[in-house]
């Protein structure tokens, strides 16, 4: 494979395109509503209506507007139509509308703020390319970035470009990606590894699933560029077992990339070799923590270990290892193609680029969005999301999953960037954004997250293992209206201890939902507290000295 071959594939593929493209979303959400049947019916109908020569019914990944799914997009004469809530029996109507007729299906509005306010880098190809055909990806310029890196840039220049972009880890902590790459690149060692963290465990988050299902090659290309930059030749893509569709599409993508020589030995006829193996998680949230994930890749119990040493120095099998998450890798090809400076021009001073969010919960427009960093939260939930349904009002927005916090409605003008969210006691996290309306009981929400952390604690360190149990029990006591002010004090004391002493990020952040709801919704806790008839007596201990005779 050389550049000419890549271009030839792209040209040939473009040349064979039909006039009208009917895109059927076949991501997990729409698939649950028979998107596969819809696609088959559309194909049959195109044939029956004699449009076979002009219409390509294409399987595509997530279009984002999951709450309105199943979705079908139509590209015809440079115009784009979107059909919502499509049923299998709607196929004849959609196909006949291609000939100018009316369509009985609900028409989506591509100019709706839900779409208009988005900016696509990571999801640039989602809903456009067929995730199971590498040619589709190549036709829109895929793997050119890898070629450019391999043939025209030194590894250090690749790191430099990523550093310049200001990209920060999209998984959790927001660590500068370029800095991490540079550390791995400089770490001595003949063998190095790349790990892509696709263990998207936050409840209420499905950004990575969507990227992997919709555009697997953008992740593989990002990983390959990273491998070149740091000097690795083996990669592992760790995906949750709960995402079977993502796994099967990745398997297809890896196979196709290998067949074309875009993965494997001597990529683009350079000395650079890179292989990727998939590792399937097995239901352990803690494996999103990088040292736990590495233990799991090694086939062990996914328990974290203290850092330092950091994976960049001593990771998989003791070798320097670069771990980034799916979304981080998905940004790389764009950065290489368009330059770090271009990327750094998007977003805020400290938070560059875009971020994908899963906007869910009590909100009119559910789905996946990609927005520039720094966009006010209000624009996301009110303009794009359309606010709370059923005439209710928004009470709080939860970001960062079980590690994050609940941002109250009066802070909706906060810009969405790493620092601002942290300042509010929440975190950017991987991108889950769950909207709660005024009917939500915040103590119950805190308890929900604490139960999650308790069940997902690996059990290695005591503060997290035993502390989450006690915090959950105290929250139970509070919600059952059996707790006193002394119990609440104990809860707060435990939050502080578990946060500061736990071994890994899971434990260190497990108290966050309690801390943040206590900060903004303390009244809801206090309303549940009971008087303390058996508390300390007035004038109690120690015995008052004036009563002492001796």
């Amino acid at each position, binding site marked *: 494979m050389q550049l000419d071959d890549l271009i030839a594939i792209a040209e040939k593929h473009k040349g064979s395109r039909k006039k009208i493209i009917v895109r059927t979303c076949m991501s997990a959400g729409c698939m649950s509503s028979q998107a596969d049947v819809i696609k088959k019916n559309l194909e049959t109908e195109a044939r029956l209506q004699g449009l076979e020569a002009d219409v390509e019914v294409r399987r595509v990944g997530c279009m984002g507007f999951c709450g309105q799914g199943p979705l079908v997009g139509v590209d015809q004469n440079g115009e784009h139509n979107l059909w919502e809530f499509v049923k299998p029996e709607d196929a004849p109507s959609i196909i006949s509308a291609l000939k100018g007729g009316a369509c009985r299906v609900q028409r989506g509005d591509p100019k709706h703020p839900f779409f208009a306010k988005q900016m696509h880098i990571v999801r640039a190809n989602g809903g456009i390319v067929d995730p199971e055909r590498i040619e589709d990806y190549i036709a829109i310029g895929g793997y050119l970035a890898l070629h450019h890196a391999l043939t025209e840039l030194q590894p250090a220049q690749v790191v430099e470009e990523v550093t310049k972009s200001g990209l920060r880890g999209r998984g959790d902590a927001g660590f500068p990606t370029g800095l991490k790459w540079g550390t791995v690149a400089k770490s001595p060692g003949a063998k190095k590894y790349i790990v892509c963290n696709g263990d998207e465990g936050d409840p209420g988050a499905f950004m990575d699933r969507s990227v992997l299902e919709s555009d697997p090659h953008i992740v593989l290309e990002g990983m390959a560029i990273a491998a070149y930059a740091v000097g690795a030749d083996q990669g592992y893509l760790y995906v949750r077992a709960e995402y079977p569709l993502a796994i099967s599409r990745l398997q297809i993508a890896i196979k196709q990339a290998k067949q074309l020589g875009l993965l494997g030995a001597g990529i683009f006829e350079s000395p650079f070799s890179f292989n990727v193996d998939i590792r399937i998680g097995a239901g352990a949230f803690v494996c999103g923590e990088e040292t736990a994930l590495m233990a799991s890749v090694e086939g062990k119990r996914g328990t974290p270990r203290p850092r330092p040493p950091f994976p960049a120095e001593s990771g998989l099998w003791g070798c320097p290892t670069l771990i980034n998450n799916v979304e981080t890798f998905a940004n790389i090809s764009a950065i290489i193609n368009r330059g770090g400076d271009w990327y750094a021009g998007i977003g805020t001073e400290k938070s560059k680029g875009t971020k994908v969010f899963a906007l869910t919960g009590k909100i009119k427009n559910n789905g996946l969005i990609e927005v520039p960093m720094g966009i006010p939260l209000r624009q996301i939930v009110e303009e794009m999301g359309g606010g709370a349904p059923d005439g209710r009002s928004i009470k709080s927005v939860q970001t960062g999953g079980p590690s994050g916090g609940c941002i109250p409605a009066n802070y909706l003008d906060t810009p969405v960037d790493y620092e601002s969210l942290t300042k509010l006691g929440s975190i950017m996290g991987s991108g889950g954004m769950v909207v709660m309306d005024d009917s939500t009981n915040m103590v119950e929400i805190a308890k929900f997250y604490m139960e999650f952390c308790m069940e997902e604690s690996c059990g290695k360190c005591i503060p997290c293992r035993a502390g989450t149990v006690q915090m959950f029990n105290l929250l139970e006591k509070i919600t059952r209206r059996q707790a006193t002010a002394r119990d609440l004090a104990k809860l707060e004391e435990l939050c502080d201890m578990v946060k500061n002493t736990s071994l890994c990020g899971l434990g260190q952040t497990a108290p966050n939902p309690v801390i943040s709801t206590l900060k903004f919704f303390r009244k809801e806790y206090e309303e549940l507290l009971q008087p303390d008839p058996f508390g300390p007596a007035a004038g109690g201990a120690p015995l008052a000295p004036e*009563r002492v*005779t001796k």
Partner: protein
Amino acid sequence: MKIRLATVWLGGCAGCHMSFLDLDEFLIELAEAVDLVYSPVVDVKDYPENVDLCLIEGAVCNEDNLEILHKIRARTKTLVAFGDCAVTGNVPAMRNQFGIDNAENVLQRAYIESAQNHPAVPKGDGIVPPLLERVRPVHEMVYVEYFLPGCPPSASRIKSLVAQLLSGHAPKLEGEQLKFG
């Protein structure tokens, strides 16, 4: 005016009270400083009002225990959990494992499974007070000011704690003074 002292015996083996009696000559000093207003060793039927200090031996096992404990808390300034059963639940709390939150299993175990003759759960008022679902240490039921663990706490440790309290200081158990089991 003397300190009004009480001692009570909830679910425990009376070993802590035996240890208390081992205070020997300190008991005489103590008698000068306190009025013993309620105790298993004095004949007072009802727990009096306005008690200054109460040493509570034993865990909270049944409704009778809980009833008097609530009364004690309401009528006493300073409570001391006296001995491991009061502080941790100790041996009495081991019955919790026969059936967590299920006192029936305990009665089965005690009066049926372990019985050699005439297995039957005793019935009738006041014979077996209704058991609590779980045995609990005292401080899980009412607020407790001070703790003196030990099974039993030795006389010297009891003396140290009581002496500190009588001199108006918050007792502090350090080194040898602090011991479980």
